[in-house]
């Protein structure tokens, strides 16, 4: 396995480097080294024993999971269960309290921002802006990680960005300013940026919120297609269990910062487990035309 060798080598180099520069943290590195022996693999995303707190408030507790290559993993859980925080940890924005996260076998903590951004693209839950950038400029920013620090987007990049907008059916928005489009349109633009970033791993925080039914399907179909064709691994939070049911290969159920259940979609999406996590009665049904749906029991 050439790939694995390469990673091993690069890790080795990293560790030597670490020994020289940061002697005090050599113990931590030792442990990781032990673990790496086993974990060095092609698994795109591995999360091991992650804990995280805001101040004294413990938000993630001993989170351990991994996402297989080119699969779509849904992260479900009630509000405030720690989904956004977990995505923040994976993309290296939040500093872990303990545990470690590996992207293709490389520890996030040891990667530069740019290395991370070449591996992982993020669609955030919320954004706020000062300057009224044009939509096209916003999307083009997805090219930043693959550019040298002094480069600017090329004409080819512009074409590519317009192509992505085209695929999402919002090419006509390209010249508008980001402040002057509707909520759903903003969401589409952020997804377009993430697609342009063209990473092996995509993290999406409620990508379908603010989207209409058609766009929800368009986006999720596209993600599924991209994931399959380009071998991209997707981890996304969702609130609609129906979407999870129809688009995810894997599901992780989070509650109070702990994983309640994880596995293949069919295993996890069971009424008992969902009811447990959300605290309401949920049932899986099937319509007369054969579509599987998840509905709260109270709607009966």
């Amino acid at each position, binding site marked *: 396995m050439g790939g694995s060798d390469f990673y091993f080598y690069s890790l080795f180099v990293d560790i030597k480097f670490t020994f020289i520069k940061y002697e005090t943290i050599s113990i931590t590195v030792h442990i990781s080294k032990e673990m790496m022996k086993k974990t060095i693999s092609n698994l795109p995303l591995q999360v091991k024993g992650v804990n995280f707190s805001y101040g004294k408030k413990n938000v993630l507790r001993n989170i351990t999971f991994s996402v297989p290559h080119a699969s779509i993993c849904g992260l479900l859980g009630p509000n405030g269960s720690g989904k956004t925080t977990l995505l923040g940890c994976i993309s290296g924005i939040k500093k872990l309290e303990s545990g470690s996260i590996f992207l293709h076998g490389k520890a996030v903590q040891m990667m530069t*921002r740019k290395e991370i951004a070449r591996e992982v693209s993020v669609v955030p839950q919320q954004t706020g802006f000062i300057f009224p*950038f044009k939509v096209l400029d916003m999307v083009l*920013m997805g090219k930043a990680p693959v550019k040298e620090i002094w480069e600017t987007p090329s004409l080819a990049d512009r074409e590519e960005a317009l192509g992505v907008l085209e695929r999402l059916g919002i090419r006509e928005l390209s010249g508008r300013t980001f402040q002057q489009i509707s909520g759903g349109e903003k969401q589409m633009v952020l997804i377009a940026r993430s697609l342009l970033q063209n990473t092996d791993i995509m993290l999406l925080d409620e990508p379908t919120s603010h989207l209409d039914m058609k766009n929800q399907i368009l986006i999720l179909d596209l993600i599924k297609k991209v994931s399959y064709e380009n071998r991209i691994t997707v981890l996304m939070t969702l609130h609609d269990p129906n979407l999870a049911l129809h688009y995810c290969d894997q599901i992780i159920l989070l509650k109070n910062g702990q994983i309640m259940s994880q596995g293949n979609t069919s295993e996890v999406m069971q009424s008992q487990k969902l009811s447990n996590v959300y605290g309401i009665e949920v049932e899986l049904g099937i319509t007369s035309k054969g579509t599987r749906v998840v509905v709260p029991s109270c709607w009966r």
Partner: protein
Amino acid sequence: MSIGVGLYSLPMEVIFELVSCKLTNRAVPSELFSPSVVFWSVRLPRAIMALLVGAVLALAGTVFQGVFRNPLVSPDILGVSAGAGFGAGLAIILVGRSALAVQSMAFIFGLAAVVAAYQIGRRSRSDSVTVLVLAGVIVTAIFTAGLSFLKYVADPYEQLPAIVFWTMGGFSDIVWKDVYWTLPVFIAGTAVLFFLRWRLDLLSLGDEEALTLGVDVKKMRVLYISASTLIVASSISTCGTIGWVGLVMPHMARLIVGPNHQFLISFASVLGAIFMLIIDTLARTISSGEIPISIMTSVIGAPFLAYLLLRQEESNF
């Protein structure tokens, strides 16, 4: 061109003659000796300096407003002017009137002030740009107070006027030496900022989003601040504090070409350079004495900004 106009009248044919003398290495005819001095040693370095300073101040202002995501920020928000003023005052009192000492001390203290502000900002628990700006306010206050103190202890007849003179900005005393010493710094700083111009778009999105787009926010912030501070400090240490341009030029540029830093950076620099040259040309031409540059910037710049503001088609803010 601006170098043709001035109190000492230099008709175009004289300038032509002077330039051709220079190019062909001919000796200047003796009746053109004075015009030659005015042209080569007074007017040219001055015009070049005005262009340069206008460009770098507008550039630094644009960069700072992007980095701090606040349209009210000007390049001296982190204390570079106050630091430079203090440094100059210290040099005047301790070392005497050596221009070199004064300029170097101004430069060094200008940088030191920004470093101090950055260190304070960094040490605060919430590592936001607002905190950094407040740190700048603190440092500015301390160095300003320091300068007042220096004025207080200065010899009122010798050192005090020197200090006061120093703090007033202007181009009237620019000689080639000043151009030579600032030019490398200007070029270096401007080049850095120009090459990093696109990342400024990313940085202005906000820290978290910039991070996920692969921007090492802290490192980039330090880079932008350092490069801008370098050029501003070097501008201040030769031409004193020239206010307003750094705050207002970015807005004018943004009102014209929009917020995309890819274009804004270059446009703001050019606009700043042209603006400053016009201002300086007017300042030395209009009246019999020199009109302080600060009056001119306001008198010309304020109506222009008002025009742009009232004219704007769609909201740029």
